[in-house]
């Protein structure tokens, strides 16, 4: 018998990767969970509510974050990236670059004294650049591990945080470290990114302050977000009385190289439309859609509820143009209502674009390192669309979450568990 491979590597600490890590760890195997950013949680941590139940996203995610970080069989490696990969199923050697955090993980208690004393404010990427964070920061209140990180690019080396840290956890001379892991199997859970909607100048994103995208909307309605959950316009801080949601932007558009449906935009926008009315029941909320794809459990009922109980107005038509009043920054949406065949001009205070989903940046290099294939759309290619939804062409390398195509949270979690099962089959058989 060959050397028993008893550990797994999961790349990506979003909800899919976390689920995979937990399911492997709970079977007694060691798991290394590698995450590029300073905290696990992924996209789900940024969301305000989830569809179709309107559960608070953080409320259902954060217990999982703790479970992962406290699990004796899981070793978290945040702020880390995968380098070279060699070997084969049962016996991979993976080089991991652990980027310097400038804060010692063994000493930091996450008290936040450093942050309070840091004089540098920079745009907060977790809040989609709307709010600010300091140059020493934790991504969000429940960031896991709860260890601060120094953003060296913006740090002025003033030394205040170093002085104020009672545990002497801050080490400004820290260097990147490289470690090599011996693992029997690898799961890729690298998630997704949003389509760059500035590629549609006619919709005004990036030019008009009151045209935002769905992830910015999530942060605006989130109590931990930059406005403490007050939904306001970015131009003047006023509460929007009329909001339009634009669907299928950077999805189902052959000309932009995204012919596929992103699967989640219909539902997250219906959810956001409902949330807009939860924030202000007097507001008018419109959704401009190509067609509504409410295929999941409870989705159609949720869509019906949005229409009948909440009064969200749905207009079937792809928006042609968003125009802006230069003085008021109010917006007008031009759309052909394809039910009535009439061109309509509808005024809004706020327009929220629903970007489609694309593979995360770095997917190409990741695929090359692992020797796995990608589809034309850039996602990881699975071996069989019916019987191998988490299986890649390289034995021992599996995929879950949005790395192989757009998925909602329940599907990402299912895929995470499925990939974990495939991985533990290899681990249980000693790497064969």
């Amino acid at each position, binding site marked *: 018998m060959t050397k028993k491979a008893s550990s797994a590597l999961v790349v990506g600490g979003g909800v899919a990767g976390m689920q995979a890590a937990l399911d492997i760890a709970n079977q007694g195997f060691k798991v290394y969970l590698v995450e590029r950013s300073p905290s696990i949680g992924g996209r789900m941590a940024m969301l305000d509510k989830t569809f179709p139940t309107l559960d608070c996203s953080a409320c259902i995610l954060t217990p999982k974050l703790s479970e992962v970080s406290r699990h004796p069989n899981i070793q978290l490696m945040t702020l880390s990236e995968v380098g070279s990969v060699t070997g084969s199923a049962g016996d991979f050697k993976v080089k991991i670059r652990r980027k310097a955090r400038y804060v010692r993980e063994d000493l930091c208690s996450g008290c936040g004294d450093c942050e309070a004393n840091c004089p540098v404010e920079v745009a907060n990427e977790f809040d989609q650049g709307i709010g600010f964070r300091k140059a020493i920061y934790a991504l969000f209140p429940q960031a896991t591990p709860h260890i601060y990180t120094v953003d060296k690019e913006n740090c002025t080396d003033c030394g205040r945080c170093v002085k104020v840290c009672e545990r002497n956890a801050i080490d400004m001379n820290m260097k990147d470290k490289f470690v090599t892991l011996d693992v029997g199997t690898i799961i890729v859970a690298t998630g997704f990114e949003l389509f760059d909607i500035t590629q549609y100048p*006619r919709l005004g994103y990036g030019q008009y302050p009151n045209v935002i995208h769905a992830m910015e909307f999530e942060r605006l309605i989130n109590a931990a977000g930059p406005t403490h959950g007050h939904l306001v316009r970015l131009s003047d801080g006023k509460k929007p009385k009329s909001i339009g949601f634009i669907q299928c932007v950077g999805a189902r558009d052959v000309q932009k190289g995204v012919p596929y449906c992103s699967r989640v935009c219909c539902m997250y926008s219906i959810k956001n439309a409902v949330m807009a009315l939860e924030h202000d029941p007097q507001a008018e909320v419109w959704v401009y859609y190509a067609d509504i794809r409410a295929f999941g459990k409870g989705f159609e009922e949720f869509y019906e509820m949005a229409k009948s109980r909440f009064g969200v107005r749905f207009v079937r038509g792809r928006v042609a*143009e968003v*125009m802006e009043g230069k003085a008021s920054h109010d917006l007008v949406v031009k759309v052909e209502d394809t039910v009535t065949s009439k061109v309509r001009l509808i005024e809004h205070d706020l327009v929220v674009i629903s970007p489609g989903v694309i593979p995360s940046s770095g997917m190409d290099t990741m695929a090359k390192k692992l020797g796995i294939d990608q589809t034309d759309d850039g996602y990881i290619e699975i071996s069989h669309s019916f019987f191998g939804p988490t299986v890649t062409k390289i034995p021992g390398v599996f995929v879950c979450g949005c790395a192989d195509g757009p998925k909602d949270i329940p599907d990402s979690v299912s895929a995470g568990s499925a990939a974990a099962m495939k991985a533990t089959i290899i681990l249980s058989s000693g790497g064969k």
Partner: protein
Amino acid sequence: MKEFILYTGCTTPVRLPAYERAVEVVLEKLGVKLTTMKDANCCGAQYIESVNHVAYSAMSGRILAIAESMDMDILAICGACSGSLKHVKHELDNNKELRNEVNDILEEEGLKYTGTVEVKHLLQIFREDIGYDAIKSAVVNPYKDVRLAAHYGCHVTRPEEIVHVDDAENPTIIDRIIEAVGGIPVDYTGKTRCCGGPLLAMDEEVANAIGRDKIENIRAENADGIVTACVFCDIQLTQVQFGEGSNDKPKIPVITLPQFLGPAIGIDFNSLGIHLNKISPEAILEAH
């Protein structure tokens, strides 16, 4: 000195001769030499294009072949002409069958298309061959406190991947030139929309409604004038301000780009044919 062969098209010499003249004097002043193409024909845009594709390709192909025989790149100053020549060039370069058909037709005159010349729209000459810095340093009489709305024209910038003039959805060349000569470029709703001109033959009412909508969007931003880079757009945006259906608000002068640029670099009104403009732009051109 850079040299181009000027293809004026049919409409400019007849309906907007001042535009042609202004192009010549302004480019000369900025160091670009022009030779007018002799024995040219219509580019075939829209009219022939909608009837027979080979005939259309042969018409634009002939212009390209004449330029080849003179070994000079083409300058087109009309949106439709520049669009057709670039389209046909693209097709002839990529469709061997069509190229053979066109060359069979051109052979009668001893002409041949081989694909050696480039087609440039006026805006490209300003950006690529002259450059904003050179325009800026040529200014002797900068404008002051004058607000100009740029209208680019659909066929000038679209489709971007074939014509390669400017970002079709967010064009900036005219605006940057307005800025370079001291004017204030004004953004307005529907800046990249059509002037309505091409629809005139089919539905005058719709065509004029589109044009007037554009005028009112420009008026809303208190622009003093409109700067164009296409003969059809210029004529259309002017004519919709007259006649039935136009309102009695003050008319907004429509000026071609070289006519606007000229006075700033020291060219007199007469050489630019300013007196031929239907809505006098003199108040704008005297704002120094």
